């Protein structure tokens, strides 16, 4: 095999359609492309002329895996545009829902997508896990169900919730639902610990595999509130490859810092930090970015795991496998947080809504989706209709890294891979999966700054 192309199509066990192409020339890897062939659905254009208060329920259809994040980023954008502050109780419910989303999404990713590789199963699927370790499968299901159930209890529906409306929430959390969630939440706690331990063990067991994911150092971007872990509010911070906070900006100023580049071979675009240019300014978001950003984990199991992670990969951790471990750590933290919130009687507060007044304005709503920073940016007219919209999804932000790491991984493997092409391609897939890319999301990355 001297020259030609190797392709993986479709990349499996990720959400959405992509193709990896490795270009070969003279027994060397010359290039790699990560083609997102998932169809564009033009959500930003679609929003134009629609009632902005409908946007939270429309835009969440961008993603069936992290609809809550879109739902909430959208409602925050509308509230920002209309200068409307929902009551504290509503924000608490939204935070709870976001944590629920994290639990369902992370458990889905770890159980259905990532673990089959890491456990090196014959049948690399959830069915294989169910066969090999029914107890593990059952705890993955329980965790996933707990997350979905939180979304349903707070949002009205398990997938595509409806309750976040400009001005707050359409309903409070009913007492009996809270009681039910507390009971299942406590059951899930142990399972989350076990899952995190399992990932930690994998770190030990599969050193050789993991070592090949040491593919360089990048910047990280996430929400943070005074150095603390944050999903819903706060500022956006940029961490440099050495772990120093370089930039911190208000969500509304995101476009001053982030620029986007159209990529010929993809329906997604590559974002980068303006200050550093492209491709130097590419960065990563998601679980690893959030953990790297967090100054200090509190005590308890979360702290232990964070230490273990730091010990294995340094701080900030750059090894892409660390994404999976970070995801498991976040899962533990999310279940803990959910239990904390549910234990506080304030979660049942009835006062969850203030009336919103449609007006002309622009608003940016940013939340941390399971896969990282999610930006919704709307302009509305005086009738409250959306005139322009821009949505930046986490996978879009990770795509440049996915592509450059694919190239690096392929290059490092290829000279030794003769005769083991399948193994090489499989590793590339494992690499891509670690990002938990959601390509249904990634196609909606657009800036609609129409030329005058």
């Amino acid at each position, binding site marked *: 095999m001297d020259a030609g192309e190797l392709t993986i*199509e*479709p990349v*499996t*066990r*990720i*959400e*959405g359609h992509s193709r990896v192409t490795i270009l070969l020339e003279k027994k060397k890897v010359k290039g790699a492309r990560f*083609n997102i062939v998932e*169809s564009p*659905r*033009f959500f930003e*254009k*679609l929003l134009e002329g*629609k*009632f902005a*208060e*409908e946007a939270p*329920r429309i835009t969440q*259809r961008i993603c*069936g*895996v992290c609809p809550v994040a879109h739902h909430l980023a959208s409602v925050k954008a509308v509230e920002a545009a209309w200068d409307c502050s929902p009551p504290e109780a509503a924000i608490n419910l939204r935070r709870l829902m976001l944590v629920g989303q994290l639990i369902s999404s992370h458990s*889905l990713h770890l159980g*259905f*997508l990532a673990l089959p590789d890491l456990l090196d199963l014959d049948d*690399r*699927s959830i*069915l294989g896990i*169910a066969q090999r370790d029914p107890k593990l499968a*059952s705890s993955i299901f329980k965790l996933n*169900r707990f997350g979905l159930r939180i979304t349903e209890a707070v949002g*009205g*529906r398990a*997938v*595509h919730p*409806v*309750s976040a*409306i400009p*001005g707050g929430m*359409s*309903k409070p959390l009913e007492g009996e639902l809270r009681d039910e969630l507390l009971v299942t939440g406590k059951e899930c706690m142990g399972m989350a610990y076990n899952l995190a331990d399992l990932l930690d063990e994998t770190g030990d067991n599969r050193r050789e595999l993991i070592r090949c994911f040491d593919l360089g150092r990048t910047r990280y971007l996430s929400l943070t509130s005074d150095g603390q872990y944050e999903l819903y509010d706060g500022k956006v911070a940029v961490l440099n490859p050495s772990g120093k906070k370089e930039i911190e900006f208000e969500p509304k100023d995101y476009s001053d810092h982030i620029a*986007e*580049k*159209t*990529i*010929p*071979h*993809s329906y997604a*675009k590559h974002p980068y930090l303006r200050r550093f240019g492209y491709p130097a300014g590419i960065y990563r978001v998601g679980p690893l970015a959030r953990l790297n950003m967090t100054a200090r984990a509190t005590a308890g199991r979360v702290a232990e795991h964070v230490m273990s992670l730091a010990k294995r990969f340094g701080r900030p951790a750059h090894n892409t496998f660390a994404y999976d471990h970070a995801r498991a750590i976040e899962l533990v933290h999310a279940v803990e947080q959910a239990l904390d919130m549910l234990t506080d009687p304030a979660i049942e507060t009835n006062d969850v809504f203030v*009336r*919103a*007044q*449609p007006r002309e304005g622009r608003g940016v709503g940013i939340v941390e989706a399971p896969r990282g920073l999610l930006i919704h940016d709307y302009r509305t007219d005086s009738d*409250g*209709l959306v005139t322009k919209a821009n949505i930046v999804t986490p996978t879009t932000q990770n795509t440049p890294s996915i592509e450059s790491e694919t190239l690096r991984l392929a290059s490092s493997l290829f000279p030794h891979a003769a005769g083991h092409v399948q193994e090489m391609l499989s590793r590339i897939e494992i690499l891509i999966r670690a990002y938990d890319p*959601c390509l*249904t999301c990634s196609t909606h990355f*657009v*800036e*609609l*700054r129409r030329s005058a």
Partner: protein
Amino acid sequence: MTTIATLSLSGDAGCHVILASLHEKLIKLLEPHELVFCQILKDSRTIPDPVDLTLVEGSVRTEYDRERLREARARTKTFVAIGSCACFGGIQSLCNVLDRQELMRETYGAMAPETSLPRGDLPEVLPKNLPVHEVVNVDFSIPGCPPESDEVASCLQAILSGGTPQLSLKNVCDECKKERKGKLEAKIRRLTERPTDLDRCLLELGYVCMGPATRAGCQAKCLAANVPCEGCRGPADQKYDQGVAMLDALTSAGRDAISVYSLATMSAMYHRYSFATSILAKLFERK
């Protein structure tokens, strides 16, 4: 043993999330059968030929979608459309009123600082977004955005045992707990205000609630959360146009929101999920 494939076209993978969320039920359901293709759960890369049952999620937006759909249909005995994208075109059909070139230009065009349009080996975007049945024959449809997990389980069970899936023939209002008083308020209300009377029918209060023209089976969950029905499950009888039915009902009730707001605004209310199949969308198809 039945061989099963799932295919996702243009959509948000929500239907696959629902499938996954069947958890133990899914394992049990699949036990006597074989899942031969499911890009999101399994590593197989092509749909085998032949396959007994294919579930297709998502709508047809690109040439690539269309090819894969045709190929899957050709290889499949029983072909099931799952979710409202597959059944009615889904939410992305609201763009069907816009020109494709303009969409592409505005989406990828005037962008700072560098500008270029996607090209190369990317699939061509079709002039409009289509529901599956407008490209190939479909044996069953399970609508919803996403469909209810119980419904998906029972439909699959029915299909796998050789039967016909039963969907509710009633409308969402049938399952709604809100009280109707038989009096419509003439005011048009938007969800910028939460309903003042949380026990009262939202349609009567003036919200555009699609419950009357939408297939039941979801237990009216949105209504239980005080949010009007978005019509995500399509009409109970698929030969009807749910949005036009609502438009009719609301105009003569004096709440002709459509004469206040434009079609672009109201289509997202009346036809949020079914615009591609609506008569209004059909009227766009110029010579």
